[in-house]
């Protein structure tokens, strides 16, 4: 097998999480993303009264998930985690805002467009669970 084939083989079998850069990539993304979220008056009320360090840890979980990385969340967990937000009016418009920030964060970090699309698709697949439908 040539080196090129070898590389290709490796790329094919790696998860999006690994291809995007694993935990360091998540760490870089979380800060940018969370600043955008807190500055966005459409959605920042959902994040308001919370402990910053804990919130950052949770956003790390968000990115790990969006990148298809290792996590133990089920759809039911997503429902539970966001149920109190749905009660406070969380809807599609808020979900769309989060999707915007997800993409723009990854663009800022120079993540290739095809990988961004993959991450967006994974996040999109959580829409009904997050919105409790």
């Amino acid at each position, binding site marked *: 097998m040539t080196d090129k084939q070898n590389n290709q083989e490796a790329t094919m079998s790696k998860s999006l999480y690994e291809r995007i850069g694993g935990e360091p990539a998540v760490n870089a993304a979380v*800060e940018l993303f*969370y*600043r955008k979220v*807190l*500055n966005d008056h459409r959605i920042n009320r959902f994040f308001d009264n919370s*402990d*910053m*360090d804990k919130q*950052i840890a949770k956003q790390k979980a968000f990115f790990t998930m969006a990148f298809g990385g290792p996590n133990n969340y089920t759809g039911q967990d997503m429902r539970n985690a966001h149920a109190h937000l749905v009660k406070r009016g969380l809807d599609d418009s808020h979900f769309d805002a989060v999707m915007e920030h997800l993409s723009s964060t990854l663009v800022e970090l120079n993540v290739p467009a095809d990988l961004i699309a993959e991450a967006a698709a994974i996040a999109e697949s959580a829409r009904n669970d997050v919105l409790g439908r």
Partner: protein
Amino acid sequence: MVKLTIEENTYACQPDETVLDALLRQEVNVSYACKKGTCHSCMVRSLDTPPPEAAQSGLKNTLKKRNHFLACLCHPEQDMVIKLPDQSEFYTEGTVVVNDMLNRNTLLLIIAFKDAFEFNAGQFVNLQRADGLTRSYSIANTPQESNTLEFHIRRLPGGRFSEWLHDEIKVGDPIAVSEPRGHCFYLPERSEQGILLVGTGTGLAPLAGILTDALAHGHSGPIYLFHGSREAEDLYRIDEMRQLAEQHQNFLYIPCISGKHVPEGFTHGRVNEVALSTLADLKGWRVFLCGHPEMINQMKKMTFLKGASSADIYADAFLVTPF
């Protein structure tokens, strides 16, 4: 319900209870101060099963391995056999050598030790009274200054520990001091980085230690210290800080008064608001926040939004123990 066994006795732990609350309810004498996993004064050890992971968060790996855990964070998953700390294992005895007032409600307490006490400027310790009452206090000096620890203690009316320190402790008295704790300290790296120090009341204690340490290490970036309270009479070390600012061109001292009466030389406003309006961009800055828990929570968020990276934001909230 699970059973907790200590020597010959067993105690019930209800589903919504922590090990600490269960033991206190059943009148077992365990020391504690914060009930939030910060002070580590409630550290105990499991003798049979590994404790739940969440009860070990923030402990050193060596302690984790030996099944030490924080009773205040532990919701047991099964019956446990527990060993309470042998107090002498964690506490060193010191002697009070200075006991003076810094202003109308803040005590300067200096404790001396026989041997060097290792710590980083800005960390805190737990002080313990003979009856086991324990509270956390920040260290205000740097390790370079002989075998002593300096503390600034504010009198809380009706506060059990602070009133005891203010009213009863005398020079020459012994006092038990824990190992140093906390991550709010200066590391001598990136010396051109800007440093923002914001404190209310005795929040100046750890900040003064951090400041002295940074200057001693030749930190060359700008260092801003904002110290605030309601009235000028509740600030302290004002002249010393002004003098330091004269000696070090990169150090700026901004005492803030939130109350109505603002003497010449002080800035009017809440310390957090003054700091934020003074510094427009905190990208790349290191931030230290000490004192009032609400101020700290708000400032963590605001300094982050102004560009400071969350890994560069250090904070010690002076939580008062909940009942």
